[in-house]
């Protein structure tokens, strides 16, 4: 089998001349893409820190609507690993009974932020609003 392959190879037409310019250009672009992907992922894999998710919840804006006060919040993951199913909670006090609203954010990658909304019956700007993340699942 090996000899047969060899003879067939020898029988094929003489190799082409140099690869065309376009081939070099596209290969160079491919090389840049591959190096960028491997470089960044490798840098992250080898040097990136692996601290647990540290999630800050911050108030962005409050909009009165006919269906309650919508408090737009954003959750910022300052930690070095990602969090999934992040439960965030806002407790509004100072206007009679304390009012709690909560939401779940699917996924917050490391050092990223994701927005969401909490809906209250009373105006959060008038009372004292405490925002925090209650828990999360490990990503993947």
């Amino acid at each position, binding site marked *: 089998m090996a000899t047969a392959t060899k003879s067939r190879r020898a029988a094929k037409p003489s190799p082409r001349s140099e*690869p065309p310019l376009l081939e070099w250009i596209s290969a160079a672009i*491919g090389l840049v893409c591959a190096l960028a992907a*491997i470089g960044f992922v490798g840098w992250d*894999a080898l040097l*990136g820190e692996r601290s647990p998710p540290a999630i800050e919840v911050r108030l962005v804006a409050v909009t009165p609507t006919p269906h309650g006060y919508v408090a737009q919040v954003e959750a910022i993951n300052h930690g070095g690993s990602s969090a999934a199913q992040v439960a965030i909670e806002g407790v509004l006090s100072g206007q009679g009974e304390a009012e709690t609203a909560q939401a779940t954010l699917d996924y917050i*990658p490391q050092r990223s932020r994701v927005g969401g909304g909490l809906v209250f019956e009373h105006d959060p700007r008038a009372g004292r609003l405490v925002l925090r993340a209650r828990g999360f699942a490990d990503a993947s």
Partner: protein
Amino acid sequence: MDANVAYGRALARAFGGALLFSFPLLMTMEMWSLGMAVERTRLLVFLLLSLPMLLGLSYYAGFEPTFRLKDEVLDALAAFGVGFLLAAVLLALFGVLGRRGLSFQADLGKVALCAVPGAIGALVAGKQLGEGAPSAHEKQRAGTLGEIFLMAVGALFLAFTVAPTEEMILIAYQMGPLQALLLMGLSVLLLHAFVYGLGFPGQSRRRQAGGPLRTFVGFTAPGYGVALVVSLYLLWTFGRTDGVAPHEIATMTIVLAFPAALGAATARLVV
């Protein structure tokens, strides 16, 4: 100049192939979240392994009929570029990338993960969408190692389209031990039938190679082994095996080995 025009057409074909092969993955939600969530060392290993795999694939099914190492390296790199750029453009178009607040690493992970199946598609397209099938001698160049390599690529390719989904885990949970064994038997049976019985193009040599037993030992058994290894590797890469009981890992591997075995069997058809 003619060579450039011809190469440009091959490149356009490569984009077409990459598109056909990778759009199901680009439009799968799990691929996006896995791109962010996959452990970076495993993603790095996956990317580093993909380059020699593309090189090997370029040797057997490049988008140019090449034999020289330099050309194959150029083809493999260009294919990675095609897969990467296509994934970046389409994911950006779908609104997956550049979401306000998400880190650059998250976006890069998504693109890098989707680039590899696209690159396989780009290389395979040379044959699939090409003007005329490659000549017979090119097909028969593959020795035993080459056959196993092609089976592995076929298995990887077909398994990859379903491996990221939750359904793989769900199916494994739903199946009992007996069903797992039956699925295993069915996979081997189908693999053998595809390899031995059905006359797909490019398989004439196998049928001439000997009786069913010899085909079984020579192609079916290693083919299923390759399918199992590729499945386990993919599950590990996607973090599906972490902290899972061994028997559950085995069931998941068997489930994923079903499409992988089909991919290995039809590797010749596809790649």
